[in-house]
């Protein structure tokens, strides 16, 4: 079976509208970071989360009142995954007392007979100091990854490619974060891990196209820069779509079957795959064109020494 035989799409023809669109999406994303902020998970804000399980579907009103009686008036209560699981969130408290909260929540719930027998599924307590450190480390991790990639691509290709790759990657990170920000989806440590993995993944795609551009610049002697870039994207298009389609299948399985804990992770990846595919064509490749790449930049430097002279 072959879905994409020889395509011949003028990808670069609409590069300007695409660039404007990308810029607009990114601006919206950044505006959302500033004005809407993030729904940071426990890992980053600090606080306490208690997940409990009931034998029967739990009545949240009763759980809330049991908690209020136990002195937890500002507890956030919600179903988690199914109606038998309940997630209770408590805001960060002064240092030193936080670690006992989880036990007290269980005590408050188990003394209330109306809701039924309660089973502890998980308690997570993160001190606000640790949370603050994680935010900082997370930001640094994204930065280090980008720098590492910039260096690698600059060594393997050329500086214009490195810049294009980083612009595309930053674009993807912003889009993924924007989805979390705009839809107010909880952003936790596993979601951050997904963002970092996406940096690698989206780049994977960009590098595949770059690789082809480099190869075609050396092989195809005719045509403009834009022709060569278009040809390269067309030649790799089938691979691009098949690969992402297949990875998407795997991540969809994770999203629907992996359970609540992995939801943020899977979602970040789903968004990342889509934006990564788009960005390797319209951000990474357009950037290289705009930065003024020319055939001469990519021709292998002639080797010096006897090897050249010895040729017949």
């Amino acid at each position, binding site marked *: 079976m072959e879905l994409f035989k020889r395509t011949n799409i003028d990808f670069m023809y609409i590069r300007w509208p695409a660039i404007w669109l990308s810029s607009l999406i990114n601006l919206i994303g950044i505006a959302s970071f500033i004005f809407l902020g993030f729904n940071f998970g426990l890992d980053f804000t600090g606080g306490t989360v208690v997940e409990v399980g009931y034998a029967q579907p739990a009545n949240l009103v009763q759980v809330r009142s049991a908690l209020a009686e136990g002195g937890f008036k500002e507890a956030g209560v919600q179903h988690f995954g199914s109606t038998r699981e309940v997630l209770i969130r408590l805001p960060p408290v002064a240092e030193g007392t936080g*670690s006992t909260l989880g036990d007290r929540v269980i005590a408050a719930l188990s003394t209330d007979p109306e809701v039924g027998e309660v089973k*502890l599924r998980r308690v997570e307590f993160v001190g606000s100091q640790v949370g603050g450190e994680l935010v900082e480390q997370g930001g640094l991790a994204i930065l280090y*990854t980008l720098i590492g990639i910039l260096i690698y691509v600059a060594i393997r290709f050329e500086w214009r490619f490195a810049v294009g790759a980083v612009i595309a990657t930053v674009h993807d990170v912003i889009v993924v974060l924007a989805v979390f920000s705009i839809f107010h989806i909880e952003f936790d440590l596993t979601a951050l891990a997904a963002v970092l*993995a996406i940096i690698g993944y989206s780049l994977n795609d960009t590098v595949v196209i770059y690789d082809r551009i480099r190869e075609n610049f050396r092989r195809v002697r005719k045509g403009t820069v834009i022709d060569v870039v278009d040809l390269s994207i067309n030649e790799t298009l089938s691979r691009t779509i098949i690969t992402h389609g297949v990875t998407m*299948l795997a991540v969809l399985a994770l999203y629907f079957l992996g359970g609540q804990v992995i939801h943020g992770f899977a979602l970040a990846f789903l968004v990342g795959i889509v934006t990564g595919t788009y960005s390797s064509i319209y951000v990474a490749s357009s950037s290289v064109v705009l930065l003024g790449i020319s055939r001469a930049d990519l021709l292998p430097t002639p080797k010096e020494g006897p090897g050249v002279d010895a040729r017949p």
Partner: protein
Amino acid sequence: MNQYPLWKNLLILGIVLTGLVLALPNIFSQDPAIEVAAVRGGHVTEATAGEIRAALEAAQVPVKRIDTLAGGKLLLRFASSGDQLHAEEVIENTLSDRYRSALTLSADLPRWVRALGLRPMNLGLDLRGGIYVLIDVDMDAALDQALERHVEDIRTQLRDAKVRYVTVGREKGRVVVKFAEVASRDAGEKVIAKEFRDLKMQTLEQDGEFLVTVAQTPAQQKQIQDFALQQNITTLRNRVNALGVAEPIIARQGDRRIVVQLPGAQDPGRLKEILGATATLEYRLVDTEHSAADAEAGRAAVGSRLYKTRDGKPVLLKRRVIATGDQITDASSGFDSQSGTPMVSVSLDAPGGRRMREMTTENVGKPMAVVFIENRTTTKQVDGKPVKRTEKVEEVISVATIREPFGRRFQTTGLDSADEAHNLALLLRSGALAAPIQIVEERTVGPSLGQDNIDKGVRSVVVGFLLVCAFMGVYYRVFGMIANLVLLANVVLLVAILSAIQATLTLPGIAGILLTVGMAVDANVLIYERIREELRNGNSVQAAIYTGYDKAMATIIDSNVTTMIAAVVLFSFGTGPVKGFAITLFFGILTSMFTAVIGSRAIVNLMYGHRRLTSLPI
């Protein structure tokens, strides 16, 4: 023609077979289990197994099997975690006075697998349930305590040297000694300089007073902090061991944090009691004038108290305490330079040393005892409700004769073995925490959630994998099936590596396995698309295979290195579950490159490499 030399094929076969063997332990079920050990002083005997079996039978808890482990432990296996928890309760309620039990998870491996030393992947706490605690050690307090000791020492030194001073105190992270006149300051400076050569000293004149300031150098501060952290880890380890957890992990994290991981543990409240428990030591004189037997019969002498040793022998000790555990600054085991017998050398702080000198001078030739005091909290079920009881446990851990007067530094000799010396030193050191601790992060995962996570993780991997395989088979036909075989080999090799290095598998780690499947697909797709392209360009079949693999290889390496960079950064920054993800991602990329580039090429070579073909089923 596309042919691999025989050695290459054999090598690939060898790697895959090794992978299969290493990954093998993972297919056996992981039983919820309980580890039973005797409490201090007791033994697990053959009768124990029968006793436990009877108790469980009485409570109608089915037990799958009871294994005897090395080190005098029993392992009770259960069919479900419900049975396991029920059994734990039964043992807690009926046998906890003699045995302590710990929840664990144990793979039910056949004897021959175990004989090969093979082990399954280590499951993270999010998969097997357990408690993770991150503890922050108050380093400022540790430094303050060290300074406080210097204050005491300097005061003693000056007094002993008869140098008149106004005050000795702690101010802004240094010791400030005030003198009324220059002459006494200069004399004082000499005294202090003689004893504290490695401290940073400064002389000043301020508001008509003459000062000497003493501060720790950064190197010393580092040393004090390291010591405090190490000491706290030792102390916490002793306390956690008392808790009875199967495989506790207590490790240093960074400059001031300690990670405690208790797989299978379920009661964070109890852990916190144990971690916060106070244990201390006391040095007391043995009352030789009265008999311990009289005291046991209820006729205790005034000023004395009856204690027991670890083996239950009575010892009568004087009520007056000579020195306490928090006055011990260091204790280490070694061998006596004269007699060559095992000994423990102990250092006390200045006030402790002073008292020790006074008491030992008066009591040469008499025995002195070390008492270990611990507040143990036990939970017992009373009328179906857990009731917590804190009891103070006091035990005499060593009795030794005072041979000559001594002060701050002394040695306890006459110990039976090097082991005993080592244990005593550990106990002496572990009495109290070197610096206050605070729990800054805690994660408890219940066993039901852990099992849920495993089930969901495994299900999503299986479904995701099958979806991918189905697509590849339809889209690339025979080559798709080759890719599927290679994908399977990739997962096997990845699991083999993770088992061999005993990496911890977490839920994000399982997601990582699925992602590597995606990545491995990418490598295959790159190669196949390239081969199709070459075929379209009119190349011969063999040339197309050759160039397809050859050209795709550079692209595959380039594109995977970038993901590896991300994985390395993730590993160095992440904790717990995220680290698990980074590890699977990193090794997954390696195995996917190996299987897709070399493994699939070998199969393609074997199937098509030696034939003249006009088309390929791709």
